[in-house]
């Protein structure tokens, strides 16, 4: 009884603390409309303490408010890789698709399935299932004893989970292999060359599926199924839990 009372007290205390949480300087700046300051402070926080899905989503919101669609989409997509149900990132991407003029490939069934868990969780789960199944097979042989009933059940369960992990792994790989167009008004090229014939226009913030790289270009497929080549410096891969790359920092004003 005392134990449950303690638990209840701890829960109430944490709820109270959450309600009384003081807004950070970045949140205050965001609320005041000083999105540049919010971006700076959230970026500093991410560099100092590491990223989280919430932080990346908030950063995406501030970047979007500053009109930097590419950086915002990278932040939101990376937040979804960390937490596929992050509400701020999902809302941001919905807003970008509905009103922001960006395009994103429709997820395949494997990608939708993979979004149940993060890519790393799928890998860890599949690895654990593999080892359990392997040990269930190997250990009785090493001990020169016949497998028990429990061994058989565990083996079947592990193998079933391993099979169920396969589409999740495939979908996770496919999700993280997408990229966001970071340059405004670039053209999809027919060939991976400097003077490749322009095929179709893509714009900053569009999400594309990536394929193999060649000659400083990457073969991509856009949301409407057009396939062509973009320069490697025009896109940023979603894979990786970091802040977006500063593509335009070196450029002369």
């Amino acid at each position, binding site marked *: 009884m005392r134990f449950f009372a303690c638990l209840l007290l701890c829960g109430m205390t944490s709820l109270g603390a959450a309600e009384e949480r003081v807004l950070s300087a970045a949140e205050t700046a965001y609320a005041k409309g000083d999105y540049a300051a919010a971006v700076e402070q959230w970026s500093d926080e991410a560099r100092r303490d590491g990223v989280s899905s919430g932080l990346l989503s908030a950063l995406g919101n501030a970047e979007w408010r500053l009109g930097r669609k590419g950086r915002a989409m990278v932040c939101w997509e990376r937040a979804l890789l960390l937490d596929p149900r992050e509400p701020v990132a999902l809302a941001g991407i919905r807003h970008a698709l509905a009103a922001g003029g960006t395009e994103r490939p429709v997820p395949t069934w494997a990608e939708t399935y993979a979004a149940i868990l993060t890519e*790393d969780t799928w890998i860890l789960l599949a690895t654990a299932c593999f080892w359990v199944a392997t040990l269930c097979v*190997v250990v009785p*042989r090493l001990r020169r004893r016949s497998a028990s009933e429990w061994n058989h059940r565990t083996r079947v369960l592990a193998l079933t989970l391993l099979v169920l992990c396969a589409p999740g792994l495939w979908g996770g790989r496919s999700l993280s292999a997408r990229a966001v167009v970071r340059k405004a008004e670039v053209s999809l090229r027919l060939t991976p060359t400097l003077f490749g014939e322009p095929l179709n226009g893509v714009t900053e913030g569009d999400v594309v599926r990536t394929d193999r790289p060649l000659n400083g270009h990457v073969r991509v497929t856009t949301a409407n199924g057009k396939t062509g080549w973009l320069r490697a410096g025009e896109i940023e891969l979603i894979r990786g839990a970091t802040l977006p790359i500063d593509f335009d920092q070196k450029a*002369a004003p």
Partner: protein
Amino acid sequence: MRRFLASTVLLLLGLLARAEDRVSWEITPRITAPGQPFRLQIMVESDVLLGGAQQVDKEIRPPRGMALRLSGQLVRPDSNEATLNFSGVAPDQEGEYVIPSFTLRFARKLIPVTPIKLIVSKSVAYRRTTQARAELVLPERTFYVGELIRGAIHLRGGDDETVVASFGLESVAEGFTLAVTADRQPLSTELGQGLRTSFELTPIREGTSELSLRGTMLIHNADTPAFSNSNRDRPFTFRRKLVVEHVPERGRPADWTGAIGAFSAEAVQVSKDRPEVGEPIRLRAILTGTGNLDRLIPPEIPGNESWDILPATERRRQAEEQRFFVYTLVPRLPGKLLTPALRFSTFDPLTKQFSRIEFKPIEVTVTGNAPAQVDLVTADPAAPVGAKPQVAAGLAAPAPQRGAPLFRGAPTLSLASSTAFWSGNGLLLTGLLALTGAALYLGYLAAHPEIRRRRRARSILRTALREAASARLRGDRAAFAKSAVRALQVGAAALLDAEEEAMTQGDLERALPGVPRPLLDKLFERAYGERFAEGPGAAGPPDEDETLELLRRLQSLL
């Protein structure tokens, strides 16, 4: 006749003889002080009519720091002599300077000029302020790409000379754009008599570049009469190495859009402070300071629920060191509204620090009534008829603290790309496979003991063969027989699955059918005969070759 022929030959020899061009030069004064003007005169005498020299300024390459210009040439159309006058200014550093050899291009002949040496020494008495001189005014520091650098050339008169005019300003500035903003303006009173030419430099790429400026000033000597035409020209040249870098990435704010300089927010003005709902008003933010004002990108102000905001162009001319940012604001709601705040970051090249410029909002009273509903979504004209318009859901309120603690500080590399993860798993799998293989192998050996026994027998047989061969060489027949019998017993025991010590000649006959019994008897007697009482005895020693052949046969059976 003889005299006529002699004089003709002499005349022909005179015509055929190769005439030499004579070139001499003179520098006045012979030794100059640093920065002192000098005159260079080159006299040419040739065998042909010379005429005027062409493109002399392009041929001559004065050494670094020296200004030199062709100021005139004396030629007569019917003469084979020419005199070229150059005016120059000695370099500021002491030393010997050599003008490299060059070629004078006359209409009918090219005449080379040997290198010319100028000695600059501080021992020469020279007061710089007496004569007209040129000075370059340019800050000495690291510059930044996109920065606006203001510089000037001061052509200052001296006590004895005044600067009348200047002309021919040429610039070579790789990696810069150069624009002359004011030419031949009078100098300020504290600098004295003279002219000033102002220019603006903008670096366009990083690295070390050289700025080269040269021109000519026209000077008048104060001692000459007022109405005489005694103006002289004097060249000037400047070469300066400039180091250009990009604005540092470290600490660069997200809203920095290229502003480099020292700026301040002067004022914010609105065209009307009591507009109606929906009535556009003009917001003008005035930025002042020194820097690349013209290259600034106007900061974007996003619209909100109170204002619709459109960028606008300013009709008024902008003054120097002032920039207007103009926006059209359309109020959406009545009441007392604050204009949107305007912020952006700047970089000060002197302090090398970023700073934030902020134009404070001002209050505007909006009259009228609010519309029933403010529709934030505009219709897409390209949408098909009857299609449902997409509703802009808007951004959710950020919650940066959200996220499981597990994900805080998530590694930048996913497991799929982690070499350590996959190599660790691979090593574990390899170890497990090796362990399983070893266990299976040992189990197989345990189930088939004859494998180990035969392997041991083969090993002993090989050793016995070596020992027997060795004993045979030594002539030790007893050792030979012991080795052979031991090998035969071990081999036969492995074949018959029996104890090796118990193997007799009969057992060997079973293991090796057809083996000669007398040979075995002789071997056993030789090997173990000493343990027992002396028997009838075998006839002679065993055949050693036959014994070795027997051992090899046994070895092949194992």
